[in-house]
């Protein structure tokens, strides 16, 4: 702790933040997990999914973009906030086409894992939008199935900022906004299976699929068979 460090609380737990850190960054360091989907380590913050909504001094803010402020009281795991988050996760399910039992990403999928964590148990009340989105299997090593896309933009930022390529981008507006590729199809871009953007960890769901390596991890050993999403961060605190 230095003179400039900021202290505040999340659900009553004292947190220390370095100047310039967001609420979420400080929470991560302290072993307090704040749910998230569009934010990802090593990528710019986007603040789009809103699953990280917390109340800072009573006002709702996105923890991934909101700077930590001295003395503020942050609420994270309250029934009300988790209900808001559950609504958002349900919206993402209903916006796309998700069939977990036959999905490659099942067990490693952050959306599915978030639904478990937030106890999205009952049938939802929202209508299904059932969009019709074509599968892009043009590329030799990678397939892109945006039926499951949650518009988190992680692939866009990873390709642009980490790979220095810009394979992906958003097009359209509103409910028609979607992820598209920089060319006629994926084969006409400079996408490569070794790109960070194509790695397991970037797409939180199962849109970016490496061909010929499907269903590689046996059930029981998949990422979220090990624990609820956030277990690694929370593990830090339990020590």
């Amino acid at each position, binding site marked *: 702790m230095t003179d400039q460090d900021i202290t505040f609380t999340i659900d009553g737990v004292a947190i220390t933040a370095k100047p310039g850190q967001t609420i979420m960054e400080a929470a991560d360091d302290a072993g307090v997990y704040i749910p998230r989907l569009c934010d990802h380590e090593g990528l710019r913050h986007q603040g789009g999914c809103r699953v990280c909504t917390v109340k800072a001094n009573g006002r709702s803010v996105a923890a991934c973009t909101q700077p930590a402020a001295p003395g503020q009281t942050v609420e994270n795991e309250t029934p009300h906030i988790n209900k808001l988050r559950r609504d958002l996760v349900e919206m*993402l399910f209903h916006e796309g086409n998700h069939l977990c039992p036959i999905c490659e990403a099942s067990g490693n999928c952050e959306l599915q894992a978030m639904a478990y964590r937030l106890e999205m148990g009952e049938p939802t009340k929202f209508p299904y939008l059932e969009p019709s989105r074509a599968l892009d299997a043009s590329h030799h090593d990678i397939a892109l199935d945006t039926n499951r896309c949650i518009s988190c933009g992680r692939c866009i930022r990873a390709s642009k900022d980490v790979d220095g390529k810009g394979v992906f981008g958003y097009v359209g507006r509103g409910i028609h906004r979607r992820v598209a590729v920089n060319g006629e199809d994926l084969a006409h871009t400079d996408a490569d299976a070794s790109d960070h953007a194509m790695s397991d960890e970037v797409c939180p769901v199962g849109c970016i699929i490496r061909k010929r390596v499907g269903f590689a991890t046996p059930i029981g050993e998949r990422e979220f068979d090990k624990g609820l999403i956030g277990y690694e961060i929370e593990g830090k605190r339990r020590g």
Partner: protein
Amino acid sequence: MATNTPDEQMTGPAVSVPSIPVEEIVSICQTYGNDRHRMLDILRDVQDRFRWISPKVMETVASQTCLSRIEVEGVASFYSFLSQTPKGRVTIRLCDDIIDRFAGLAAIAEAFEEELGIKVGETSPDESFSLEYTPCIGMCDQAPAAMVNDVVVTKLTPDLARQWAQSLKAGKSPEEIVSDRFADLSPHARATAQVDNNIRHAGAVLLGPVPDDAGLKTALGLTPVQIMDMIEASGLRGCGGAGFTTGRKWKFAAAEKAEKHFVLCNADEGEPGTFKDRVLLTERPHLLVEGMTIAARAVGAREGIIYLRGEYVYLRDLIEEVLADRRARGLLGEAILGVEGFDFDLRVQMGAGAYICGEEGALISSCEGLPGEPKTRPPFPVNRGYLGYPTVVNNVETFCHAARILDRGAQWFFDMGEEGSHGTKLFSVSGDCLNPGLYEFPYGLTINELLEMVGGEDAAAVQVGGPSGTMIARDSFHRRLTFDDLATGGAIIVFSGERNVLEIVEYYMSFFVHESCGYCTPCRVGNVFLQKAIGKFRKGLANPEDIDYLKDLSGTIIETSRCGLGMTSPNPILTTLKNFPLVYSAMVKPSKDGIRATFDIQSAIDGARHLAKRRSYIYDEDFSK
């Protein structure tokens, strides 16, 4: 790359499309210095000249501006006035706001469809015409209204629509139809030949007599701090909707140490039912620029932008003429009025059909050549705005007030209106009333008083502040137009008892769905769900629980949205649930047998019927009979 190859597009329609020479695209890009921040200008010019933005164009533009094609496509696909398929030589955009619907839009659309031989949403096969719907174009006091390319037509009737269509088919340009002498008219005369001002009541500040540049001359004798103190002391608050104290906003920007500062004017005026800035831009353009120049002196800005909504393109020449005139008279440019070191100039940035660009962060994104997405806050524009520099964004009316305050003094302004709501306000009144138009009054007027003046005594509902505002019923007409009671950016829409409140609400939700930028989940997806739920009420398929569902979902959208659009988009529903509860309860039926009224067994099994290629023994009538 500057070869004369025609555009070989691979994905366009089968009809012949105008070839787009690469060199022309290169030259458009060069006009804007190949600057990616001028992307919206580049794409607007391409759209105007070639009527679409082809994949090949996007590649050329990308390589000229050092961007990727997908980044260009991101911009091209965001704005309603840019198209990725070829549009007709004339595009007719009918305002399909609820006001226009109530004013007879259907018959007008039909007249155009018949005459042009195309449906709304189509382009004629020979590419003469495109016919479209568009949200409010700011002509609500003279609805039904339409844009025909860059020209505005108001007070449409089916006959007038036919006349326009026939003249266009005969080869006349929209400008020629407005006036045979169009080219000879002054920009102001051209604007007023298309659109009436409908100034119904001039107040003391804006619409009454205004001396030339008196405020600017006062400002020259004051220090920046004195100017800002004066604006703060006047009690002036932003007129664009949010009502932030203008003097404080300027002080925040001035306090930020930076190489440059910017002053931006928000002339996006997209909130349905609002048209006050249209009239100020037409009748008080010098006052606006004067106000911006004063702001520039206060915060130390040398550059400014007027962000003019695409729908107001008919006012562009008028504004450009004003800027040229002021430059010629030493009121813009270097050493303004001879004061060494006082330099300020500005440009007009045209929008291209996106309500969200009125949100200040989205407006800045748009000026930077990006899709009109709001920015993450903090940082706020006053700290890091346009191109990362401290930026003041104010509404047209706010700048005009500021100029008047400098002339007449803070106390003069402060003494008008009420505690917390000082000075006068422009109200754009439309809908079911005898005298729609613009009214300037001190804050504090009651709705009843206003209705009496506008000839709207039969009102059953008044929408204050447009869709994102509040819909009130008769029992609230004693309420006052102030920031603390009924706040409004200016829109007052009057509805008589014959209007169906749910139809209005359903339209407003479709507006928000159309205008959401899509950046964040709750607004992008949640508003679609709200719109669908209101549709259920309209069809009489709602259950009593659906009222709680509306409230609950609205709450989530408001609490989790990223910008003001999502934070206010459920207002049409929430304010009518509160003020017109019977409208909803009359439409709900308790469910029979626990089955939701929306559940339709026939459509539910339809998919299976097609797959199995046979009918159902239980549910298909001819089998069960």
